[in-house]
């Protein structure tokens, strides 16, 4: 006769509620681990998927994800000329928040180096990659945009031609993919009034400049966007992504580019390392600590529940001792209940989590390794938390069955 099961059956309602509560608690622990893993995955997602061996960024910056990095467009061709480089592409990346259908829409915009890169590498779940160099956009499903939906950004309207799954920036914002040209247009969009004011200001400055006085033809250039003014052009790319040719020595390529005084170069691993140790490190550690604390709290709560369940059974335990039940029977009863509590709680956590986590604003990634690790922790907690109850049960004297 299994006393643990009999006791559970007798108090099924209370046990079910308790186990559901434990399940919810474990679901939070599981979710916290999933958010932690999601944060790490999101942080390295783009670096992983874009398929670049090297990242060339503005000198002494840590790349387009960690801080503002600006490099000239011509860098693409300079890098391409380095022996061992198979391809080099523009990389434009920035985050914007606009209003769409009356709601704020925050997205990270990634410019693809058209025509070399049309987004074939993107994990599309619907639609297609970009097919033209303007006004098309691939968006992540988390943004809630539908295929063929049109969205106005700046002065242009873009059509959603593809939907990706699981493409989020390090901040958890859904990503959109357009050509680098469109990306810059979105990034540097300026209101008409601001343009008029800037033109007037330039004109006024030019009237006091010897350069414009001696070369009046230059004044024709003043009406062009600031980003296009040839003599004072701002760096327009966030980075240049490089693929090293098969068989070429990456260290040699890195060494060559590193000698240039205007840029820094990172390998893919270096960029990932920067992301994990820099950008998301604090969030990662905070989540990790929070998860550890939650695990400890879950252990304490489970121990208290099992202790209370044992206290409720003290009379029965004394009676069992009185009729000669060996300690292993009593110990087994408490331990089995602890394991059932932990096991069923874990199952509830997993099942409810599967339904709820997809609705979390940030990605929750449950890996098999993490789930197994948590299962082992829950088993450990169950056994450990039953010790308090077992200790109490072992101290019960059989003559206590005769009292009260």
């Amino acid at each position: 006769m299994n006393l643990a099961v009999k006791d559970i059956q007798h108090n099924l309602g209370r046990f079910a509620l308790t186990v559901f509560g434990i399940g919810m608690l474990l679901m939070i622990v599981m979710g916290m681990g999933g958010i932690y893993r999601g944060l790490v995955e999101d942080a390295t997602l783009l670096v992983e998927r874009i398929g670049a061996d090297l990242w060339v960024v503005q000198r002494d910056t840590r790349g387009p994800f960690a801080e503002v990095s600006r490099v000239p467009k011509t860098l693409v061709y300079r890098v391409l000329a380095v022996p061992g480089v198979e391809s080099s592409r523009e990389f434009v990346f920035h985050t914007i928040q606009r209003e769409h259908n009356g709601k704020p829409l925050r997205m990270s915009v990634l410019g693809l180096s058209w025509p070399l890169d049309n987004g074939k590498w993107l994990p599309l779940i619907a639609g297609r990659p970009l097919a033209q160099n303007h006004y098309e956009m691939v968006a992540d499903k988390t943004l809630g945009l539908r295929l063929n939906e049109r969205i106005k950004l700046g002065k242009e309207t873009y059509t959603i031609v593809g939907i990706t799954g699981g493409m989020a920036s390090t901040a958890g914002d859904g990503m959109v993919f357009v050509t680098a040209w469109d990306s810059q247009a979105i990034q540097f969009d300026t209101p008409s009034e601001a343009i008029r004011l800037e033109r007037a200001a330039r004109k006024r400055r030019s009237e006091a400049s010897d350069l414009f006085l001696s070369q009046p033809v230059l004044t024709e250039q003043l009406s062009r966007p600031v980003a296009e003014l040839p003599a004072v052009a701002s760096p327009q790319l966030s980075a240049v992504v490089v693929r090293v040719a098969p068989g070429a020595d990456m260290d040699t390529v890195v060494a060559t580019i590193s000698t240039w005084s205007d840029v820094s170069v990172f390998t893919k691993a270096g960029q990932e390392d920067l992301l994990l140790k820099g950008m998301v490190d604090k969030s990662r550690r905070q989540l990790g600590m929070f998860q550890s604390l939650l695990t400890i709290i879950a252990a304490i709560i489970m121990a208290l529940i099992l202790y209370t369940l044992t206290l409720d059974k003290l009379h029965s335990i004394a009676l069992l001792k009185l009729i000669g039940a060996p300690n292993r029977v009593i110990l087994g009863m408490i331990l089995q209940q602890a394991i059932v509590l932990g096991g069923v709680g874990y199952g509830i956590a997993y099942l409810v989590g599967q339904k709820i986590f997809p609705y979390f604003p940030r990605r929750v990634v449950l890996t098999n390794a993490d789930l197994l690790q948590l299962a082992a922790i829950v088993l450990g907690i169950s056994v450990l938390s039953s010790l308090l109850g077992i200790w109490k049960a072992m101290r019960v004297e059989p003559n206590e069955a005769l009292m009260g």
Partner: protein
Amino acid sequence: MNENLAIETRGLTKIYGSGHTEVIAMRDASVGIRRGEVVALLGPSGAGKSTFLTAVGLINPPTLGQILIGGTLVLDGPIPLLNLRSFRRKHIGYVFQKSNLIPFLSARENVQIAMELNGASPRNARNRALELLEELGVADRAENGPSMLSGGEQQRVAIARALANEPSVILADEPTAALDSHRGRQVMELFRGVAHEHGAGVIVVTHDQRTLEVFDTIYEMEDGAIIKGVSSQDTRSTLATT
């Protein structure tokens, strides 16, 4: 050492506390109860009846004295000479004033568990439990939990559990307190039947004067000591004159 004795106690003394707070709950209690003998233990509250019963039941060891069960020396003062819990399981059956059933087990399971703990197979234990409940007239309540049973039914289930392993000693503390006179008498007759059939020694603490004639011997306790023991013959004649 007399092997015909189901229970033998030699100079049992139980002292609680020490110095100024010392209380002697039982002093020099010596009895010999034969196999098949049914014994009543009488006395006012605080006389030491329960202390004696729990000492003999190997639940609350004495400070001094010896307890022999079935001719085996089990306790020498407070020192156990055997694994008491295992010994209790095999040789002693308990029935208490309150039925003391395990609340999360049905009536049948309360009886069955005692046998399973003693090594019986679940199937045999189940069949025997149903037989015992049948004998005690509660077979129809076999699958009900204790909370669904009346006080009398609970007591009969507790008796069935006490008899489950055919113990050599049955200890009962006011087992008829929750029963009407008819059921009370039935229970005492049952103890008597078991004692005679299985050769068990039965000690019953009781205040129920209606059932005294069932006992072979009646011991009376006062201030922790057994002050007299009379045979059933004397009891019956005493009852006849009162």
